[in-house]
């Protein structure tokens, strides 16, 4: 890494255009397949693992599920953490509600109020839910749950049937609420060294709030299994 560090320091001076060109050259130092390690991935192998879904619906499988079917699956697999109506239990996530709350003091970021794409719902339920048994649901069950959670948020009607054609057409209420470009750095400070501020006032202190676990001895009693 040390030699790479030095080279990148030198390159910074030439500007990013030159840097990228140099990186490209660096990347193309050897022809494709030069090392040739590994086995070719077969279509079957790729199909088994390639589970990602994009907003345009790329990756969605055959199958379908209705809101009603979703209600049953939800009660069996989801409501113990997310509540019967997606209201959330304890610190487990709330799935519905929070409309119009994003600019409020206590925003509620739910599927309905916050998530920009319906495809993400299918993708995430399929890859990571139920929390205690991920990737255990059938594609139809995932479609049904997606339909149900969208319906809980009044984004689709009760007769909605989710499949690979209908789901990409669902427009989420907050799709346009995101800016997909990092605005930072937003703060340009001078490096002031002397008399940099007039007043120094302590506005808040963590003392006495009783929120800090112990930092000595074993992990806090009652807080571990």
């Amino acid at each position, binding site marked *: 890494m040390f030699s790479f560090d030095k080279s*990148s320091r030198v390159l910074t001076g030439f500007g990013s255009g030159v840097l990228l060109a140099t990186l490209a050259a660096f990347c193309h130092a050897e022809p494709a397949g030069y090392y040739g390690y590994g086995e070719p991935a077969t279509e079957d192998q790729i199909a088994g693992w390639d589970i990602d879904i994009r907003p345009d619906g790329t990756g969605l499988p055959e199958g379908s599920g209705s809101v009603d079917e979703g209600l049953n699956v939800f009660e069996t697999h989801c409501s113990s953490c997310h509540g019967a109506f997606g209201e959330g239990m304890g610190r487990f996530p709330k799935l519905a509600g929070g409309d119009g709350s994003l600019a409020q003091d206590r925003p509620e970021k739910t599927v309905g109020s916050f998530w920009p794409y319906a495809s993400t719902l299918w993708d995430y339920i399929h890859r990571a839910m139920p929390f205690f048994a991920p990737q255990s649901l059938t594609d139809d069950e995932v479609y049904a749950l997606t339909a149900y959670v969208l319906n809980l948020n009044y984004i689709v009607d009760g007769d909605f049937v989710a499949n690979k054609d209908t789901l990409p057409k669902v427009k989420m209420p907050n799709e346009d609420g995101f800016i997909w470009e990092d605005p930072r750095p937003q703060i340009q400070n001078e490096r002031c060294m002397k008399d940099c501020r007039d007043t120094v006032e302590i506005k808040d202190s963590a003392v006495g709030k009783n929120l800090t*676990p112990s930092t000595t001895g074993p992990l806090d009693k009652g807080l571990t299994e």
Partner: protein
Amino acid sequence: MFGKLRRLTQDVSRIALEESERLPSNERRRFLRNGLFTAGGAMVGGALAGLSPRLGATETQYPPEIPPWTRTLGPGVVTNPYGVPSSFEKDVIRRNVPWLTAEKTSSISFSPLQHLKGIITPNGLFFERHHAGQPEVDPQQHRLMIHGLVERPIILTMEDLQRFPSVSQINFIECPANGGMEWRGAQLNSLQFLHGMVSCAEWTGVRLSTLLQDVGMKPEGKWLLAEGADGAAMTRSIPMEKALDDVIVAFAQNGEALRREQGYPIRLVVPGWEGNTHVKWLRRLEVGDKPWMQREETSKYTDLMADGTAYGFTWVMEAKSVITSPCPEMPLRDSGIYQIEGIAWSGRGKVKAVDVSVDGGRNWKQARLREPVMSKSLTRFSLEWKWDGNPALLQSRVIDETGYVQPTLAQLIKIRGTNSIYHKNAIQTWQVKPDGSVNNVQL
């Protein structure tokens, strides 16, 4: 010399015999049958462990006394075939904040920064963030699939992967939620819990550029999806520019295989970018023409502003620093000369300078940076300070090589509001009281 060794041996034998007398008869027989030295260091270690309580809490071993560890033999080699810290370091552990998450499988533990020296985090103390717990992945069974917009989709074994040319680089990893509990006020009175979601290690692995070059990327490949083999099948979309710049598929951390908590057998290391992009237990890399808009880059790890809009793809960890000594866990004692010490880092490159203030940011002095100072790595700084016993407000402020100056919390809140959770890289203020205690305060 041999006489002395014999005496020492006799001492240890005597201690061991005394120890054995306190054992039940069957255990005592085994103890004596195994013999003191043939049983190896563990037996001597056991004898010594039995010895220590007998010292008594009030009995001192200072000069001119000769302490017992000078008058006996210690345990032999391979007493701990994989070494562990001294028993006196038992407080130096990762800790969690139970009220923070619903349970511990999708949760966070914090590195004990108050006890760490230098810039490398020991592997057992590296902070943890799991989205579905830490799977135990069998490296013989594990595979890395590379596919999508490539000429030659492949499946690599871990042995295949390690045949490629590898590199080592020292990089920090920080969770973007580090300090995220403090947007609305000072809550936690502890360095560990306030800033312990950052750690730093030497990572060894294969450059993504090497791997992607070998499978032959198609020109329309602009994005990469990285996916883990854990129960969250954790995913992030990474733009190709970054992937080809300095990202590696790491299989080693500080010279040994990755720890299970850090993604054993392989993880992504995405230098300077938020921790969740460093996908652990990596199983799949897909080249595509657009980002995938996964849950962990839409619903989570996006920054909600006060007006209700949210910024996404805010990958880079902006420059940050914090004083690690003193801190709430490491208070001052008497007035006198102290070395204020801390760590600084930037996701945009090297730390150029760190300034320290003892008056709440009115006046600043440039601290000394300790070598080595490396890009996207922790950097340690120090400044000598004579404490007169009066109240003080300690702060540190990093300037990185892009000229970016670490902001105050008030500045961040003005731009971001208090609901963005992530990317709180504000200056930390420690209040020093006349009794030497140190507290987390906000100005």
